[in-house]
């Protein structure tokens, strides 16, 4: 389990880093997703983006726990 990530000697909780990563990904994915037909089905497009963010956050955490060996980032 990756619990913390250090950036230039500062140890941060991994959750924070994955959240930033998820937010950046959602920002990048916004434009392509807006072209999808599903987008017109939603009352609140921002709700979909929030869902995407939460999913990506959890996905990044879980896949980092599974795939990243200790010592790659932490």
């Amino acid at each position, binding site marked *: 389990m990756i619990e913390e990530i250090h950036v230039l000697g500062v140890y941060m909780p991994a959750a924070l880093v994955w959240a930033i990563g998820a937010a950046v990904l959602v920002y990048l994915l916004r434009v392509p997703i807006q072209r999808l037909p599903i987008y017109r*089905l939603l009352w609140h497009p921002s709700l*979909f983006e929030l869902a995407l963010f939460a999913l990506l956050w*959890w996905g990044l955490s879980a896949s980092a726990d599974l795939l990243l060996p200790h010592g*790659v980032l932490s």
Partner: protein
Amino acid sequence: MLHRHNLLRSIATLLVLLVILAAIYALWIRYQVEPVTRDGKVRADMVPVAADVSGLVTEVRVADNGEVKRGDVLFVIDRPRYRIALEQAQAVLASQQAALAQAVREDRRNRAMTDVIAAEAIEQGRARVEELRAAIGQASAARDLARFNLERTIVRAPVDGTVSNVSLQPGVYLTAGKPALALVYTRSMRVEGYFEETKLPAIRVGDPASVYLMGVADEIKGHVESIAGGVEDRERAGADGQLANVNPSFTWVRLAQRIPVRIAIDAIPANVRMIPGQTATVVVHPRDDGRAVRRSLPW
């Protein structure tokens, strides 16, 4: 057509909401419930080595951070002074013995001539013998104590370990009982994870655990040795035997307290050095033994 479209929109939005809740739940389990803590410390028992006798330090036989075995000499205190004290005690004992021998001879002689010697004088002679016997007991105890003190001028390591923070130099005057250097008992090395009390139900004694030292990639294997028997109640002051003094607090936000969980080390990878005080991340892997821990949801 419009009606069907609206229904579809509602369902899609509901689905999205469910996905958000599910993801939040998964995140909450991962970060708030699974028994993991970044708040762990490497710890070891420490013996503050103190001299049993006061005096000048005449010799220091350990270097800072050196490893010592049990019984190794750490430093020596003013032996000549304590040797002189022993000689003095021996001399006192010898003089008492001489005095006793003389008193015994006098007493024997007095008792053989009861016709010429006053009864009072005979009694005095007998009392003198008894006094001297008692004085010899005292002097012999004093000699033993002096010998013991002389032995204690050589300060030995009470346990195997590493001496640390040694700044002792010959010429320093040590008073008895004052710690002179710290000896870290290497075999008591363990990791203590300070787990939030909310994570504690998942932890049982004997569960395997992984420990990661800050900045070290290699895993240190261990197992849960014990869980603290109690922590301080921070809301309450006052000693035993007094009335309870409870802090009149009203808290909107409460934080989970930390409970120390002791992790015994099973295997340390080669080249990994554990130093008491180091920061560690502790991951406990709960065994699948059919235990039922009912987790409370976030409320």
